[in-house]
């Protein structure tokens, strides 16, 4: 029997990677790819384990769409890291998407477990 979780979960994640990343960057103020990967895993208690390589193109897409702004910073050990911050346009999109997401999950939950009138 095929593992349903391994098929269904990536589909769910794929459609929501941008809102996850935007929300994390917005909350953390300024963050970088590897920190976000670890934070998603930590907050979801290991449930959300996306292919790490898909996070970076998603971050680039958000930046090219003008929702985030990336900048290189040099660390004390000489290493360079690319940090991302949410732009005002990204904040507006995030607010709209979060509202839709909350309405969507509420509606889905109602379908799964309807309110008895």
């Amino acid at each position: 029997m095929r593992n349903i979780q391994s098929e269904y979960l990536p589909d769910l994640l794929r459609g929501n990677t941008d809102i996850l990343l935007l929300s994390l960057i917005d909350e953390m103020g300024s963050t970088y790819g590897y920190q976000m990967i670890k934070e998603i895993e930590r907050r979801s208690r290991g449930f959300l384990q996306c292919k790490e390589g898909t996070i970076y193109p998603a971050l680039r897409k958000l930046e090219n769409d003008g929702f985030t702004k990336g900048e290189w910073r040099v660390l004390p050990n000489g290493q360079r890291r690319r940090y991302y911050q949410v732009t005002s346009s990204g904040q507006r999109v995030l607010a709209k998407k979060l509202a839709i997401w909350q309405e969507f999950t509420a509606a889905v939950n109602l379908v799964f477990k309807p309110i008895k009138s």
Partner: protein
Amino acid sequence: MLTEVISYLHQIKSHLRLDPTTEKQIIGELYTHFQEKVSEQQRFGINEKEASRQAIKSFGQAKTIARLFYEAHSKGSWMDALMIGLPHLMVAILFASHLWHHYVVAPLVFILIVSVTLFGWWSGKPSWLYSWIGYSLFPLLLVGYISRSIPGQVISFLFWGEAMLPSLWSLTLVISSYIIYTWIIVRTTIRVVKRDWILASLMLIPLPILGCWLYNVEQSGNVLINSGVVIHQWDGIMAFALLILGITSLVFIRLRQRIIKFLALVILSSITFTIVAHNLWGDIGFFSVIALAIFMLLYLLIPALVESRVGHGEKGSDNWWQDIQIDYHSTTT
């Protein structure tokens, strides 16, 4: 950093097909990711080789990651779309106003096109540049085609003894200009192919259509001397065709997926070529339409064939790994 990670990053880079600066930044960002990931795993007691292997496994397939990066960067802005459509529009206006034959306006337009091309070439080769390059190459083909009678005379004299030999200086001039033109066209095409063969296909789309038109005009009289109604009879259809090519370029730059970009190029340019051929050569049958579409498909695939021979990566990018290490390596990891 272990050779497995270096080789993995090399695989991603070989499939990116973006401008060198963006490619370098992407690989730099991934390099720092692997540095941190491997160091963290080592702190948990995993040896470097195993940590690198796990880091690569959790990252995903190199080709898929490269495709996602390409799609994240390949969609141009509306300003890029305007810029990429502009040379098509300018030449279409030249045809629509019958001014392509004007001895001041036409050279001015081509000088402008060549100037913008050179500016774009030396300022990081933005994605809109490639339609400008196509039109910049056309005057070279035009001059080469018009001056073909001189080498033709030599061939006739040598093989059939029919024509008179042209003067030595004119022959030297024509042959040396042929060598220079061929060098410029081949060198430019290879440089573009090394960046991304699909951009070379975009660059080359106006040439067969302009070539067909030039052939027809030459059949009706000399393109430089004759200014009568005869040689202007196809101006309307050429303006329309170049307008479609402008829209094709615009669609191309606004799409993200590579395969859709290529299909848009093949389908729209085949339609354009068919419309032009129908107007230039009279009624063409169903099989001719199919033949034209196959011709366009093969023509647009030539850069892919060239890429398989010359490889990917612009001049100077062979040292990319050393550059990444210098720019992104930490001193304490």
